[in-house]
């Protein structure tokens, strides 16, 4: 379980995460004990989000490099486990995909 208070653990590693945004590409550093969305916001990048629970799909992005994230804390945003390259703003594509597969897709 990730800390509630943004505490930095002694064991945390930092990964490079590249975000492909509608306005271009930006690279941020994300610790393994923080969520990608939080790190982006701290870097001045406001990614789409609504529920902040990993439920509504507004924050959906596509991993492009086969990178690894820790989904055990999937009630929120995934912490990185490797360098990542993420195509952001994928909520409509994610909803369409989930609808096709008979999975819950809120707001669709």
């Amino acid at each position: 379980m990730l800390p509630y208070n943004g505490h930095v653990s002694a064991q945390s590693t930092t990964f490079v995460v590249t975000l492909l945004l509608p306005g271009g590409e930006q690279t941020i550093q994300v610790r393994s004990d923080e969520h990608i969305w939080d790190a982006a916001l701290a870097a001045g990048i406001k990614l789409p989000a609504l529920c902040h629970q990993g439920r509504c799909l507004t924050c959906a992005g596509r991993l492009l490099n086969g990178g690894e994230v820790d989904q055990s804390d999937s009630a929120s945003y995934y912490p990185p486990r490797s360098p990542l390259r993420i195509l952001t703003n994928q909520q409509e594509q994610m909803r369409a995909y989930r609808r096709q597969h008979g999975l819950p897709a809120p707001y669709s």
Partner: protein
Amino acid sequence: MPRKEVVVKHGDVSKRVGVEVIRARGVDVDKLLKILIANAAAEFASTYYYYTILRMHLAGYEDYKEICEDARLEDRAHWELIVPRIYELGGELPNDLKEFHDQAGCTAAKLPDPPTVVNILTLLMESERCAIRSWSAVCDMTFGKDPRTYDMASRILNEEIEHEAWFIELLARERDGKVIPSGHFRRGEPGHAPYSKNAKFYNP
């Protein structure tokens, strides 16, 4: 982008002036309906239903149980408030309960494992936070364009903000031994809902 207002002809019952005017003022009515249905599902399925179970498991913590009960019944009042507006805007609820449940924009507040009081209070607090975010989105979509939906959303938002403050107060004390006052706890009978139920504009 605001659309040109559609003329609703004399005697035409296929269109609603009440919808066309807000569309012309820039509201994406289809998107608004999706959000209202998602929020109705969250109030009814993700919270009202599951808070019933959470409240049962607060056995022995009678003060927490009472506060959970207020939040539970107020979420039910929100559901009652939202549904008429969905139909009024030309939308409808899915005629299948599972389909409706799956539209919820917030995670179901299922009994945590283990169901400790700290875990339950954490879940309640995070559920209220999702509700605040969801209703703020409706306020943003409708402010200055759709006063009726905005009025409803802001009333609900008022109560969700109070709920979050209550659960912060309770969790901070229970988990961290800290005093973080909510600033208020003012309710009459259970389910008082001072903003949404007792000032409602529909189904009086």
